[in-house]
């Protein structure tokens, strides 16, 4: 069910089932979000964003021009002071590459193999309205082997644009 910018109701208008299904049923359903998880522990030595042996998780949703995204994982790097980064790329109606910034879950290991489990929440703007696929991507960024497990992504395609 796709999100629609909530309409302004007008005095005296006839409220049809079509309007209720769009503005009540579908918009409330959009708040469920779409979620995917890959529990398998896998790793990469790549210094650029790549897929792991099991790609994803990935979520395909119909959006307007913005959506809320959560990333979560348990992650580490086997080399001291090196990174483990989980980002997200967008494809479909929109093309946006993964990036190591506010759109990523980032760890810089104090020493070898110290492991963290946490989440990152952000608002993805700049989307082209339509069917968009959000796919998790991974990198060790500078060196070492970055490992990730219980990799979860949630996308809630709501917004006022």
């Amino acid at each position, binding site marked *: 069910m796709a999100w629609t910018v909530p309409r302004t109701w007008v005095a005296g208008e006839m409220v*049809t*089932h079509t309007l*209720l*299904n769009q503005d*009540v*049923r*579908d918009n*409330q*359903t959009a*708040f*469920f*979000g779409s*979620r995917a998880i890959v*529990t398998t522990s896998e790793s990469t030595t790549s210094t650029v964003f790549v897929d792991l042996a099991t790609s994803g998780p990935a979520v395909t949703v119909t959006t307007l021009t913005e959506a809320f995204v*959560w990333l*979560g994982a*348990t992650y*580490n790097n086997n080399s001291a002071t090196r990174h483990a980064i989980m980002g997200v790329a967008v494809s479909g109606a929109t093309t946006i590459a993964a990036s190591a910034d506010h759109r990523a879950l980032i760890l810089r290991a*104090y*020493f070898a193999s*110290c*492991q*963290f*489990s*946490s*989440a990152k*929440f952000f608002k993805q703007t700049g989307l082209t309205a339509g069917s968009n696929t959000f796919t998790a991507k991974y990198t060790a960024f500078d060196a070492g082997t970055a490992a990730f497990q*219980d990799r*979860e992504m*949630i996308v809630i395609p709501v917004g006022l644009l």
Partner: protein
Amino acid sequence: MSWTAPRTWVAGEVPTAAIMNAHIRDNPQALIWSEADVQTSQTTTSTSYTDLATSGPAVTLTTLTAAYVMVACWMSNSASNRNAMSYAVSGATTLAASDTWMMSTFNYNIGAFQSMRISRQVALTAGSNTFTAKYRTTAGTSTFQRRRIAVLGVGG
């Protein structure tokens, strides 16, 4: 206010007060997170999930079969070990705390972290469910404070 799966409206029907209250009044309110927190700093040496001296925090709400759950706290360890905060579910559902949805940090000696984890729990039985924070360490003594749990009981 509990969540009801959004209904499909039908041409020509007369919406009753009960329908409007469930879908126009109650469902938007169900989009408000239910939260609880325990500020007290307490410790554990348990390597399996357990309660602290003050259990929780815990949230009870009526859900369908899925919910969003957020756990957050400030945590540290007496040495270089890992601390973990997760949650268990009781009531209509019985689900033990698990590393699959934990939030954890690895502390180097006296270092400390404030962090959070949000996950979607899809293994619920519809009904009244209580989400209770649980804690463990991998070794040493883990300390937890400013402990918060929040649940959004939508979907499913």
